[in-house]
């Protein structure tokens, strides 16, 4: 054998030198690295942006609909389907092979479930329908062919094919609807095809033979398991394994419990020739029952689409081509439970939810880095049930409008609502004025590069005819503040701040500086923002004299070290006058920490116009619970009128000092970021509030009565002209 080993070494060494890296390799690496870096930046600031609302901007009906010079009417609003029952948790695998339980409401990892780094790239993961966030049970297969099965207090490596297969491995997996069995497809011992093997899931393995056993006929090795419906608990129970062929056809394989083990009795006829199926999933009325709704990821002529079918025959399709972009359909995967589906391409993952009747919301991008994910079931016995056929009309949900359900926090969307004042919004590349003449794009960032608007603040005293806005933009990790002047309906200035007024100037915040803000002083004579980097947290204040800087050393440009006391970076949200006299102001900030309340930083304006910050900032606790405050707004008054909180169930707008004081309005889940970063924008407008998400691009005008009206187009941030 030593001779053989020597021959192998010599051969491998010789063959290795047959190849030389091409010069294009580094370019390709650089391109892929740049893409990952871009995703990171985007996922911080803009992830989850839904781009499709731009078309609404073009709706001409807005012209002439306003009822007064300072009141505009929102054009026909984009209906946001009230979310049905969508799981709050997913099991996600990142590129490093770490399997985690992720809370979709916050995007945060609840806990790590397993380290599957040794498994290679994940091919499939499925969560047991009986799993809960507290007790997660799932199975996954990967390119290594290994099967990872995790149950209560167990993590085991199984392999359905190692001893029987010489040329292949398990590559698809499914768990029975009652959570009792896990099945994989793997090559047969004779390598003449593949077959289904199964074994009990860990929570049902006590007293059972935990080994794998083949149960099915020899099949084409390209067949993949995608779902398993029906019961497997009792002798004679029949259930159905669903498989997708390499040609995109859906097959059913009926298995019957015989001597305690599900055994194949027939391989069903081909179905679903209407679509070329890439992947499929089934949701359940309750664990152990047949699927009542199914999802197909189909390769349609116009690109990938998601197909939803209810038990009563209703069908709705969603075109995913624009969302997914240029992808290899072979990389696409699907997982779905109840009214939510996850779709991914191996690098990115989207949540596509509907209202329970097939009216889909825009896909929401989850954080970059998840290469595979599966939803937890929320229709456990005793849990909410959505796919109740008795509630589902037979008509086509795609054709029938969804009636708003006042009980749902995501609805209703009131059409014809009016804005009490003109506003400015930013989307990824556009800064838009929503005035009496309807939406007008004021400024656009160049398409080249990765430039994005992050925020925009209107200078106090501006009007729609003489408007000054400062916008924060980013491109490839660099940050700019830009002056936007809009006078008489024309853009007169759209320029980055010059030195020394640019973010990061002076280097006080250290390397890797990123700014938060800006905010205007109440009189509009100065602008402030926070800078965070490797150095101390810094507050920058720049005087304004028809532009950044005054030329007066007292007011031109100042930096103050912020005492954040170990807190996560503060986000300045407004700068208001306080009752302590004309020089007394207060800069308010929020922090994405776990503390209730917001932060107040007294800022004193000296006689020469210079600002003084004495460092006596303090935290203000509203005392109405422990929810995280991510926004405060007061419409120019010193008293906080609105609080924006993140609760377990999603964002909540609290009337802190208005006529409905204490009322809590649950806001649409479209504002909920899927990437774990919970920064939202809140501004007071009239007697209501503007709320926007830089993560999902959803913006709402919420009236004093608590009605949420979706603003047209993408809205990452909004501010009021007053």
């Amino acid at each position, binding site marked *: 054998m030593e001779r053989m080993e020597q021959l192998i070494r010599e051969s491998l060494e010789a*063959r290795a030198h047959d190849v030389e890296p091409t010069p294009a390799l580094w370019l390709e690496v650089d391109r892929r690295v740049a893409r990952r870096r871009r995703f990171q930046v985007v996922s911080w600031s803009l992830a989850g942006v839904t781009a499709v609302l731009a078309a609404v901007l073009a709706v001409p009906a807005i012209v002439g609909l306003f009822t007064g010079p300072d009141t505009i009417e929102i054009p026909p609003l984009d209906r946001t389907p009230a979310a049905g029952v969508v799981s709050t948790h997913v099991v996600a695998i990142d590129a*490093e092979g770490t399997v985690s339980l992720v809370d979709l409401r916050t995007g945060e990892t609840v806990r790590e479930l397993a380290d599957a780094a040794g498994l290679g790239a994940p091919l499939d993961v499925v969560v047991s329908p009986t799993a809960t966030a507290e007790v997660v049970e799932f199975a996954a297969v990967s390119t290594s062919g290994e099967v990872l099965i995790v149950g209560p207090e167990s993590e085991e490596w199984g392999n359905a094919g190692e001893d029987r297969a010489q040329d292949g491995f398990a590559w698809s997996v499914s768990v029975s609807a009652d959570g009792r069995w896990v099945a994989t497809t793997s090559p047969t011992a004779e390598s003449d095809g593949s077959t289904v093997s199964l074994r009990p899931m860990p929570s049902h393995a006590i007293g059972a033979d935990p080994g794998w056993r083949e149960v099915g006929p020899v099949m084409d090795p390209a067949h993949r398991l995608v779902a398993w419906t029906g019961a497997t608990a009792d002798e004679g129970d029949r259930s159905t394994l669903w498989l997708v062929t390499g040609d995109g056809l859906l097959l059913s394989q009926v298995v019957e419990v015989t001597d305690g083990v599900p055994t194949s009795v027939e391989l069903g006829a081909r179905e679903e020739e209407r679509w070329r199926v890439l992947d499929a999933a089934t949701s359940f009325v309750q664990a152990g029952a047949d699927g009542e709704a199914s999802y197909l990821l189909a390769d349609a002529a116009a690109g990938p689409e998601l197909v939803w079918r209810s038990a009563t025959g209703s069908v709705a399709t969603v075109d995913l081509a624009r969302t997914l972009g240029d992808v290899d359909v072979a990389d696409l995967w699907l997982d779905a439970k109840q009214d939510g589906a996850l779709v991914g391409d191996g690098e990115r993952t989207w949540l596509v939810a509907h209202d329970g009747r097939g009216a889909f919301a825009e896909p929401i991008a989850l954080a970059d880095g998840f290469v595979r994910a599966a939803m937890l079931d929320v229709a456990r016995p005793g849990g909410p049930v959505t796919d109740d056929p008795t509630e589902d009309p037979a008509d086509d949900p795609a054709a029938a409008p969804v009636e708003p359900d006042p009980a749902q926090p995501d609805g209703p969307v009131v059409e014809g609502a009016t804005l009490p004042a003109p506003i400015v919004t930013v989307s990824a590349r556009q800064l838009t004025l929503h005035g009496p003449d309807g939406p007008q794009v004021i400024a656009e960032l160049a398409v080249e590069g990765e430039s994005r608007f992050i925020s925009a603040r209107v200078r106090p005293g501006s009007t729609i005819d003489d408007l000054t806005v400062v916008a924060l933009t980013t491109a490839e990790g660099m940050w700019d503040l830009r002056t936007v002047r809009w006078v008489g309906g024309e853009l007169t200035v759209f320029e980055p701040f010059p030195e020394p007024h640019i973010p990061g100037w002076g280097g006080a915040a250290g390397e890797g500086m990123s700014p938060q803000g800006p905010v205007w002083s109440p009189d509009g004579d100065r602008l402030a923002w926070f800078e965070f980097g490797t150095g101390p947290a810094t507050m920058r204040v720049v005087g304004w004299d028809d532009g950044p800087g005054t030329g007066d050393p007292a007011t031109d440009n100042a930096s103050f070290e912020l005492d954040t006391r170990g807190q996560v970076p503060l986000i300045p949200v407004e700068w208001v006058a306080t009752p302590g006299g004309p020089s007394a102001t207060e800069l308010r900030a929020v922090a994405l920490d776990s503390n209730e309340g917001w932060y107040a930083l007294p800022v004193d304006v000296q006689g020469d116009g210079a600002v003084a910050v004495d460092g006596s900032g303090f935290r203000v606790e509203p005392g109405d619970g422990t929810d995280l405050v991510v926004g405060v707004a007061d419409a120019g008054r010193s008293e906080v009128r609105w609080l924006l909180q993140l609760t377990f169930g999603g964002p909540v707008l609290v009337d802190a000092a208005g006529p409905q004081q204490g009322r809590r309005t649950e806001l649409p889940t479209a504002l909920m970021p899927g990437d774990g970063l919970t920064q939202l924008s809140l501004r007071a407008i009239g007697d209501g509030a503007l709320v926007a998400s830089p993560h999902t691009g959803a913006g709402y005008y919420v009236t004093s009565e608590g009605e949420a009206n979706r603003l047209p187009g993408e809205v990452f941030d909004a501010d009021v002209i007053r």
Partner: protein
Amino acid sequence: MGVDVLAMVRAGTDSDSFAAVFNAHHRQAVRLAYLLTSDPHQAEDVVAEAFAKVYVRWQRGDVRDVGAYLRRAVANEANSKLRRRYLERAQAQRRAGDDRGVRTVDDSAADHDQVWQAIQRLPDRQRKAVVLRYYEDLSEVETAEILGCSVGTVKSQVSRGLARMQELLAASGGVATSSEGGGY
């Protein structure tokens, strides 16, 4: 949020040093990928993806041994390619009735090296174990770590691989492989 942003911004300034990492390791990575996939074009694709994944951890400072981490990433990426090729081969079989529909092995390299031909005919798992053991000179423990399996599995895969190669080479009649034998 600040921490994330810091990492991102740092990432925007470190391309030069990552280029140094690339220069130090890319050639060996491409060769390993080629031995695992038999396809020089796929090898570059595998290595590009592996470097991109290494980068994510490297820029966070999580990678102490880039070479080892890269080796693992290459093995995993090669796995992915091999699986897809398996499916392509299966589809080609359905189309053409045999496996001539897809020919992914580099012909020029295969035709003059019977040992290499035999290596390529090994099942994927055996082949990976053999390449990592005899080309990368990894221990069984290191090989097991990369393949994500037990040391026992590595031993059995290598053992089966060697036995299978002896059969293949004996059948071809071109190479004497026992210790007592001569050479080619």
